[in-house]
């Protein structure tokens, strides 16, 4: 455990250095925006729309007192989506999709000597491979989460329209009521931290892969498991720090 933390710290120190060449870094960054961000849009959209719809239906189902206005469905859906579902659940989904991709890509590069080739050329492999991924994820994931929030809220509205449990007007009144901008900042802060966890932990797992293709699979699985556990742990820590 302590050895792993130490190696992770050393890897991060190697990663966060000035890139060898700015133009190459920018090109890599653009590639990562596409691979980590744009390519994840589909799954983020699908999960968000259903997530929003389910939250709206469940909330409506649980309101059986005439004293509670139906606009609470919109309010509760918004709060749930913004505070927890979009930043945390989508980050957990991305830990599976993006984390396994990063670990297997870098792990394969390790076992096929591509990382050794970089080192021999005089390139800092950690900086060259990980810095663009970490930077791209920390920039693009908040954008994905904003999109997820919008689609999630739309999903809730759609559920209201289709089921008729709540009128769209009530839902929108709830969405707009008692809004605090800080909840959005809270969601974005969490997302940036989670993006760093997903990319750096997965990069670490891939970078220190030893053996063959079976070990690449093991690294990939570990990347997803450890990223997910850390996301849940940091979710609690950040919530305590920012909301209490």
């Amino acid at each position: 455990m302590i050895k792993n933390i130490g190696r992770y710290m050393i890897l991060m120190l190697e990663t966060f250095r000035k890139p060898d060449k700015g133009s190459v870094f920018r090109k890599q960054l653009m590639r990562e925006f596409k691979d980590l961000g744009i390519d994840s849009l589909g799954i983020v959209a699908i999960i968000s729309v259903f997530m929003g719809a389910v939250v709206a239906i469940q909330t409506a189902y649980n309101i059986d007192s005439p004293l509670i206005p139906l606009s609470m469905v919109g309010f509760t859906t918004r709060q749930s989506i913004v505070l927890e579902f979009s930043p945390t659940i989508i980050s957990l989904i991305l830990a599976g999709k993006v984390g396994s991709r990063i670990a297997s890509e870098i792990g394969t590069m390790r076992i096929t000597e591509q990382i050794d080739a970089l080192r021999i050329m005089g390139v800092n492999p950690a900086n060259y491979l990980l810095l663009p991924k970490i930077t791209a994820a920390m920039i693009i994931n908040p954008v994905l989460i904003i999109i997820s929030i919008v689609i999630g809220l739309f999903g809730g509205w759609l559920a209201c329209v289709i089921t008729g449990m709540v009128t769209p007007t009530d839902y929108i009144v709830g969405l707009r009521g008692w809004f605090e901008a800080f909840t959005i900042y809270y969601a974005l802060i969490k997302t940036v931290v989670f993006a760093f966890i997903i990319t750096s932990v997965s990069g670490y797992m891939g970078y220190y892969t030893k053996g063959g293709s079976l070990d690449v699979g093991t690294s990939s699985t570990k990347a997803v498991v450890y990223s997910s556990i850390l996301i849940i742990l940091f979710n609690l820590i950040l919530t305590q720090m920012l909301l209490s």
Partner: protein
Amino acid sequence: MIQAVNISKSFGESEILNDVSLTFEKGKTNLIIGESGSGKTVLMKCLVGLYDVNKGSVEYDSRNISKMSFKEKRKIRKELGMLFQSGALFDSFNVEENVMFPLSMFTKKTYEEKLERVNFCLNRVNLENVNNLLPSELSGGMTKRVAIARAISLNPKYLFCDEPNSGLDPKTADVIDELISEITQEFKITTIINTHDMNSVLNIGDNIAFLYKGKLWWQGNKTEILKTDNNELNDFVFATELTKRLK
């Protein structure tokens, strides 16, 4: 010229190299041979600085890399090219991008200048019209040739080849051997080849070093290797039916 001076390397309790001293001359193909597990790959990784030696030093034209910082090592690394056993081409890049990679990282050339150099290197290894192919679309021999082209793209002073013929048919292996030998003489490079292919030894072995159980056991050239009375070397050289008949 590269010199290994009394180098030793251990992993935990296991000693892989024991007091190995070798000189690799410029403009010649220097071969390191030995059985599997004799320490050839570890020696090569010590020479290129991927492993730090426990004792001794590695000197590139009297520059001791064993005592250098990461930054100082980087300067030397720009002067060396390496052909890995698997080729180690970058999967996500096509052939042109692979060969262009060192030029993009370490030169300020324009795209046209880099492309000109890439095409020169690819022509030099007898490859044409492969610029847009991905590594997965190349044969074993082509992969090795692209890796050689990438290794020579920055005009290296030192070229390291780890098992350049592994996985290749004898004819293609010969082509790769000839290519490495020609490039060595043409560009006056110090070339070090790690191999257990006797065909390469007899074909291009200007200087040959035989490692046995982590020690330097014998040194000579391709003519002398056939006449030696060193028992361990003879067991290695004449291990196959073909070489026994040759003897």
